[in-house]
């Protein structure tokens, strides 16, 4: 099923991801990190199902392990010394910092995993096209060229095989030479056809009008609603850190802010903001369920 967040305006989606990525980097508070990790994990499992496990085992766990181990080994700041490794103190603070930065990196990588699912190439080209039309054109053309070149390489290979110069036969050196000649004619063809493409673009009026993109996204009421909620979430984060509701210090001694009712309220607001895609998906699923039970 298509993810509900996939259909909203790319600009709003981009702001959401920027928010989700930057907050843990700026404030490595255990509560924020925990919320960010949990929200990213829930959504990732919604997006990729069981395949998320592979991603977690392959990328997230090694990064976390490495960061957790490296910090206490190299960083000897902090006042609570636990034990010594070869005359170097290992402190409680640097262990806590290692675990926190591991959680921060893990949440960044997990949010990027979701980003890769939502931001397909047409959305990236759409977003880039507004700020950098030339670059976005290069990106979209390169994306098109990759499968085109693969196809053309196969065609050239078939023609060479027909002429008795296939990659399949002869000694290794011969095969390599034939492979290189396929590559050579592919490159010549690609360069020459790129100029033809450019001429055809020019004669159709490239550069006369601002660029438009293949998919067009209207900014509708739902986008405005989600954008407003996002703005509220960001505002609450800015206020909370501005009024020192949330603060953290790792060195020389570990110290976090006191837990007040306002702090809890802020955490709930933060969690709800990050859960926007998950909530959207749940509402869609509930609607689907309702309309099915009506039948």
């Amino acid at each position, binding site marked *: 099923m298509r993810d509900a967040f996939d259909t909203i305006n790319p600009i709003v989606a981009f702001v959401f991801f920027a928010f989700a990525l930057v907050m843990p980097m700026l404030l490595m508070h255990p509560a924020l990190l925990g919320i960010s990790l949990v929200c990213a994990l829930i959504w990732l499992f919604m997006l990729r199902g069981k395949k998320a496990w592979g991603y977690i085992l392959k990328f997230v766990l090694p990064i976390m392990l490495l960061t957790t181990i490296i910090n206490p080994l190299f*960083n000897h700041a902090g006042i609570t010394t636990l034990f010594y490794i070869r005359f170097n103190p290992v402190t409680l603070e*640097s262990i806590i910092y290692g675990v926190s930065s591991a959680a921060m990196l893990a949440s960044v*990588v997990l949010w990027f995993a979701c980003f890769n699912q939502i931001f397909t*190439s047409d959305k990236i080209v759409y977003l880039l096209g507004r700020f950098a039309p030339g*670059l976005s054109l290069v*990106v979209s053309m390169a994306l098109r060229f*990759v499968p085109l070149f693969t196809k053309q390489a196969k065609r050239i290979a078939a023609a060479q095989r027909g002429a008795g110069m296939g990659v399949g036969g002869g000694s290794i050196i011969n095969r390599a030479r034939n492979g290189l000649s396929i590559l050579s004619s592919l490159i010549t063809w*690609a360069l020459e056809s790129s100029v033809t493409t450019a001429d055809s*673009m020019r004669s159709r009026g490239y550069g006369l009008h601002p660029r438009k993109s293949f998919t067009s996204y209207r900014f509708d009421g739902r986008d405005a609603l989600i954008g407003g909620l996002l703005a509220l979430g960001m505002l609450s984060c800015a206020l909370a850190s501005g009024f020192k509701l949330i603060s953290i210090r790792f060195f020389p001694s570990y110290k976090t802010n006191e837990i007040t009712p306002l702090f809890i309220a802020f955490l709930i607001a933060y969690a709800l903001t990050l859960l926007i895609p998950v909530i959207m998906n749940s509402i869609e699923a509930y609607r689907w369920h309702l309309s099915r039970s009506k039948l």
Partner: protein
Amino acid sequence: MLEQNAKNVNIASLEAAESIVDERILAAERLRARQEADEKKRRLIRRIVSAVLILVFVPSVVLVGLLEWQDRKYYIVSILIIIFSMAPFFLVFEKRRPRARELTLIAVMVALGVAGRAAFYMLPQFKPIAAIVIITGVSLGSEAGFITGALTAFVSNMFFGQGPWTPWQMFALGLIGFLSGILFNDQIKTKWNLFLLCVFGAFATVGIYGQIMDTQFVFASAQKVTWDMFLAAYASGLPMNLIFAAATVFFLLVLTKPLLNKLGRIKKKHGVFE
């Protein structure tokens, strides 16, 4: 007499017409010369601007980051610096409204780099990306080299997955393309020149790409950056970087001559990037 007159008039008008045509040709030539001079001037300015940006702007941003933001938020500060230092290149490129032929040529080189990374997917780190970026910089100039390098990293990550490493890879590959455009012109004829290019390729992959990517890891995980941390990161990254360097030298040896020939032919035939 009348005939003679008519002939004279004819000759006179012909001469007048010829002189008009001559004048027009002269004017057109003068205009073209002026345009070429303008273009040369603009190119010089652009080169100076990009050199100043990369040699002055980037280090100063790093210094400000180190001195002003002593908040120990190395990770976000370093990512911001990387993005800031890439921005001028993209801005200069967009501002001058590049021609369609330049765009398609750069797109072809980007696609070749991406396809090359995909083709050698089985061998870890053995990829022709850096070699193709270097050859592009050598043949099409430093600006095209930077754009090709940065966009190759960006587009190939659209296939292999974007992450916090994307800006770093973009910057590292872009820098390699930029430097190769500054250090070499496309007259790589002798074996000695090719040798120098290969030395640069090895240095660029280990010293620039590898170093930047390992630095990224230190900034990502460390609270307080120390020299032994950098040393440890570089030492652990060295084997992978050496494989990448070997791949780059290999592909430079194989690809430099044919690719430079083909690109040179396109440049001459169609008058792009001259």
